[in-house]
């Protein structure tokens, strides 16, 4: 089981990693330690590999900074479930292999620090209050996620997944 970290609507990437802690400001080996340093102090120390972030509408809006997602990947975040995602953030997560899944129910069903399990096969996020149904991930994105990200996909296949 993993822990849920619950956030609200319109969580912007400046909250995930503030620009002043960009890798090229503090170094490639340190920037992830500033994840949520303003919005949720202590997150980077307490988060465990496989933990799930749960959010509301427009998760990851704002700056295109991929290092916000890279910080979460480095910390081992196992997936993000939100009502909706900002577009660049969504792409960045797919590219770096973090499952991003939309769910209308998760943010009301799941409470911060709940024990949860992300079951992509069954299409649910299991939580103490019940299963939150997930929207299916588009096949194109699913293929990239299954490969562990776009770099791994392209290395294996040489080109993008085939379009329907």
């Amino acid at each position, binding site marked *: 089981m993993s822990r849920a970290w619950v956030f609200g609507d319109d969580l912007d990437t400046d909250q995930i990693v503030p620009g002043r802690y*960009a890798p090229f400001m503090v170094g490639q080996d340190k920037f992830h330690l500033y994840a949520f340093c303003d919005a949720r102090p202590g997150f980077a120390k307490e988060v465990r590999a496989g933990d799930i972030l749960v959010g509301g509408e427009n998760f990851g809006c704002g700056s295109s900074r991929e290092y916000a997602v890279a910080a979460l990947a480095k910390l081992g975040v196992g997936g993000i479930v939100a009502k909706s995602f900002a577009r660049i953030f969504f792409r960045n997560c797919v590219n770096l292999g973090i499952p991003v899944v939309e769910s209308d129910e998760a943010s009301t069903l799941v409470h911060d620090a709940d024990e949860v399990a992300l079951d992509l096969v069954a299409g649910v996020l299991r939580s103490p209050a019940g299963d939150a149904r997930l929207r299916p991930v588009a096949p*194109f994105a699913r293929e990239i996620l299954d490969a562990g990200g776009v770099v791994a996909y392209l*290395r294996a296949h040489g080109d993008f997944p085939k*379009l329907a």
Partner: protein
Amino acid sequence: MAKTLAEKILSRVSGRDARAGDLVIAPVSRVMVHDSVIDAVIAGLRDLGRDRVWDTSRVAVFVDHAAPAPTPVVADSHRVLREWVRQQGIATFYDAGEGVCHQIMVEEGYCEAGTVIVGSDSHSNSYGAVGAFGAGMGATDIAVALALGRTWLRVPESIKVTFTGRPRKGVTIKDAIMRVVREIGTDGARYACVEFHGASALPQGDRITLAGMTTEMGAKAGIVVGTPEAPDWLFPDHGAAYANEVRIDLSALEPQIAVPPRVDQVVDVSEAVGQPIDVVFLGSCTNGRLVDMRQVAATLRGRRIAPEVRLEVVPASRRQFEDAMADGTLLALSAAGGVIGSSGCGPCLGRTGGVLAGSEVCLSTANRNYRGRMGSADASIYLGSPYVAAVAALTGVIDDPRPYLEATDEELDALIARRRAERPGRGAASVRSGDRSRELMLSAARSGVAMEIDD
């Protein structure tokens, strides 16, 4: 079937009959990369097993986000970037001080209308100012585009924004786009393309303000219809389907203020009057052009800014910097007490050139007011037009700029004195060095700025 601009462009470049919701693989006409993410882009290319970018003539690289380098770590990253540019043989390279990537991409003609351009910055939507489908992406997407010369895109739904009328004196296109953000919200255009109608006659700079700020509504792209740069085929079909439509009557528009910490928390200026301001930032790809600097100089009319206020001026590019230098605008702004920074992103994203301390309040002409955006997470950022910025610098508070523009010299002094007296004691009064007389400041301002400045 009738197509939107986005559907037309993506159909043409992908060679498919692209409709909103389809996925397409699109060749890109150019890839823009900047200093902030260069390490990840280089690492991404390496991880992809590619030594070379697909076409060096179609790659543009900029050092603007933290430039000139504020720390040794940043300086080192810039060194790595320059080495990479040299090894790759990329000629379109703009080093620190040349300006903000988006301003240069548009004003130096790197954005071809009707093509897809991807950039490593979220405000790459700006290229819609000249009719290009510009989209911001993360470092790995950019690395993939550099390797393949292609990217994947979901064809966006479109939102039609129509402007009618002319803004009154003291109201700008920045107010217009903030009014649109107020209407649509920070996620109202998520995954969508915002199409601007009734904006084709605007100066190119104003069109950059419009297209760039579509990012703040979550848009994938923002494109101005009918720009002078657009080819004949590039127009939305009559009867094209839109997910949403917004009409703004510019003639009825009030100056707008975005209240921290949300870009869509927008009010008429009357609701923010009296808010004390410590720092004014005039700059960014949104409002760092000659016209913006002129509007501020014209509003100051030879007056010095309030002694407790700092005014940071960062021209958007060397071209804008030099034009403002040549016509006296920068002299007027410096003599008024402004600090002129080198062209680039400046403090817009909190990395260099006058970042904010905790509890400080900034009036910024840029595009974002998130918590922590310009420095301390405890600072507050109000967004407004250059006119509002000028008045905030003069008085130390937010106020409606229009009475200041209409006032006689005596009335102007009285207005300023009253607002300064009402402002609660904050900061410390700075002596302004230099010895420009008001006459000299005025003549500098006048040489650059006709008092009946274009609105």
